[in-house]
C-alpha cells in the first residue's frame, strides 16, 4: 500500500470524490432518488469492505481518482448486469444529457410507454417537458429493445399491448436484413485496420471517447490523431463503397443500431 495515511483516513478524505464518481455512474445507469442513494451506499461499501481492501491494494501506478473510477466502473458493470442484463445508455442519449438517459432507460430498458415515463419524470421533478417534447427527444435516440425479459406489473402489460411505439425499423424484416448486411460490411472494413487504428475508431465512434483521452490511452500525441482519424474514415468509406454500402445505407443502420 502506498497511501500516506491509514485506509480509513484516506477513505474519509476522498469520500467526496468517491461519491461524485458513484453519482456519475448512477446517472449513467439512469438511477434516481432512492435507487441512486442505494447505489452510492453500495459503492461506499465496496470500498470499505474487507478492511478497505480496495484502498490497501492501491500501488500508486495511476492517480487514485482514476483508480477509484475504474473500481466503481467494475462495480457498476456488475450492478447493471445483475439488474438489467448488459444494458448501457446509448451514446446519443449520454450526449443529450440526463433527461435523455433517463427517458431512454424508462422507455427502452424498463419498457414504459412515453406518457408513463414522462409522468414519472415530471412527478420526480426531473423534467418539465411535455409528452410530445419527450416523444420528439426519444425519436432522436437510437431504437433499442430490452436485453432480457423484465419484470413488469399488470398495468404496464395492459399498456404495452396497445402501445404504438414498437420500433418501426426492427419490426420490418427487410430493414433488419439490410442493417445486418451494412453492419457486417462495416465490421469487415474495421477488421482490416491494425489494432491501434481499430481501437482508435472504436473508442472514438463506438464508445464516444474524446480524442484527448484516446491519445492518453494509446500513448500518442493528440494532434496527429485528428488527421489519422480522417484518413481512417476515408479508408472505411472506400472499403464500404466497394462492398456496395453508401451513405444512405449507413444512415439506415444508425437508425436501428443502439
Amino acid at each position: 500500500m502506498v497511501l500516506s495515511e491509514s485506509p480509513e483516513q484516506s477513505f474519509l478524505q476522498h469520500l467526496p470524490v468517491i461519491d461524485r464518481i458513484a453519482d456519475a455512474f448512477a446517472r449513467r445507469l439512469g438511477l434516481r432518488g432512492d435507487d441512486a442513494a442505494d447505489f452510492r451506499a453500495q459503492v461506499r461499501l465496496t470500498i470499505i469492505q474487507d478492511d478497505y481492501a480496495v484502498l490497501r491494494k492501491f500501488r500508486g501506478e495511476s492517480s487514485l481518482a482514476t483508480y477509484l473510477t475504474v473500481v466503481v466502473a467494475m462495480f457498476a458493470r456488475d450492478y447493471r448486469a445483475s439488474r438489467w442484463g448488459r444494458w448501457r445508455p446509448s451514446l446519443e442519449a449520454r450526449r443529450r444529457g440526463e433527461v435523455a438517459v433517463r427517458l431512454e432507460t424508462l422507455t427502452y430498458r424498463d419498457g414504459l410507454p412515453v406518457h408513463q415515463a414522462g409522468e414519472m419524470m415530471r412527478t420526480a421533478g426531473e423534467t418539465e417537458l411535455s409528452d410530445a417534447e419527450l416523444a420528439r427527444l426519444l425519436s432522436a435516440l437510437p431504437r433499442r429493445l430490452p436485453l432480457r425479459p423484465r419484470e413488469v406489473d399488470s398495468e404496464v402489460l395492459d399498456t404495452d399491448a396497445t402501445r404504438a411505439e414498437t420500433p418501426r425499423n426492427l419490426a420490418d424484416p427487410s430493414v433488419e436484413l439490410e442493417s445486418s448486411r451494412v453492419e457486417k460490411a462495416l465490421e469487415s472494413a474495421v477488421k482490416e485496420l491494425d489494432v491501434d487504428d481499430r481501437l482508435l475508431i472504436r473508442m472514438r465512434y463506438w464508445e464516444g471517447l474524446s480524442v484527448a483521452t484516446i491519445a492518453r490511452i494509446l500513448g500518442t500525441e493528440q494532434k496527429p490523431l485528428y488527421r489519422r482519424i480522417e484518413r481512417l474514415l476515408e479508408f472505411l468509406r472506400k472499403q464500404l463503397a466497394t462492398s456496395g454500402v453508401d451513405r444512405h445505407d449507413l444512415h439506415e443502420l444508425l437508425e436501428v443500431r443502439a
Partner: protein
Amino acid sequence: MTDRAHPNTPIDPEQIAALIDGKLPAETREQLLRSLDSNPELLGLVAEAASVAEVTQSREDVIHSAGPRRLRPRQSRVSRLSRQRLIYMTAIAATVIALVWLPLARRGFGTPDLSAIIDEAGRGSAVEVPDYSAGANRGLAEAAATESEAVRIGAALGALRTLSNANDPTMQVRAERLARDVAQLPVAAPAAAALRAVAVSPDSASRATLLRQASQDLEAVLDATALRRGAWLATAELAARRHDNAFFESTITRRFIGQVPTVDRVAHTPVSDWDAVLSAIEHAIRDGTR
C-alpha cells in the same frame, strides 16, 4: 465486485487506471491494448471509466495522493501546443476581436454588455444551443435565488438570445420554460412577463428589446455579476462546440476571465482539449460556485 471481464482474463483495475491516465509502460500498454481489441466488454469498461473520469476529474479535483499525478502530461502538452497555437491564433484572434470584442471593449469592461458577444457568437452557428433551464434537468422546487441559480439563468438568457437571433423554432419553448423558472424567483415577475412576451413575439428585433429588458429586470433582483458570468459561459460553450479557440485566446477574454474567478477552471483548461473545456464550462454553469 467481479475481478474478471472474461472467464480467464483477470482485470487489474489499477492497470486500467494507469492506461487511462497514460501512465502505463509501453510494453504493458501494447499488451493491454491487444486485450481491449479482442475483448469488447473490457473495452466498454475502459471507455466507461475514461468517460466518467473526464467528467469527474477537473484539474483541481486531482487527488494529491501517493503515486504519479495526472496533471503533468497535460501541462507539458499545453506548453508544446501553445507555441504552435500562437502562430495561428494571432491572425484569427485579430479577426474575432474586430468582429466581436471591440464593440464590447469600447463600452468599457467594467460593466460588460454581453449581448454583442452573444449576438456574434450565435451568428451562423451550426451547433446545438444547450438548454440551461431548470425544467430540462431538475425540479423547479429546487430553484432559489442563489448565485449558482443566477449563473444558470444568465446562461439560459444567453442561449435564448442566440436562438432568438437565429429565429430558431425552439426559441418559443425555451422562452416559456425560462419564464416559468424565473417566475418562481422572488420579485422576478417583471422579468418573467418579459420572457413570456419573448415567447410570443414574432420578430427578432422586438424579442431582442424584450430580452434586454428581462436581463435588466433580473439584474435588479439577482446577482448581476453571476448573471453575466452565466451569459459568458453560454457563449463560451458555443465557441467551444465550434472549436473556436480564437475566442478563448483573445486578450479581452483573458481579461474577463481574470475578473471573474469562477471561470478559473475554464481558463486553466487547455483549449486544445475541447471536451475538457466543455466539461469545465458545464461544471461552471451547473455549480456556479466560486
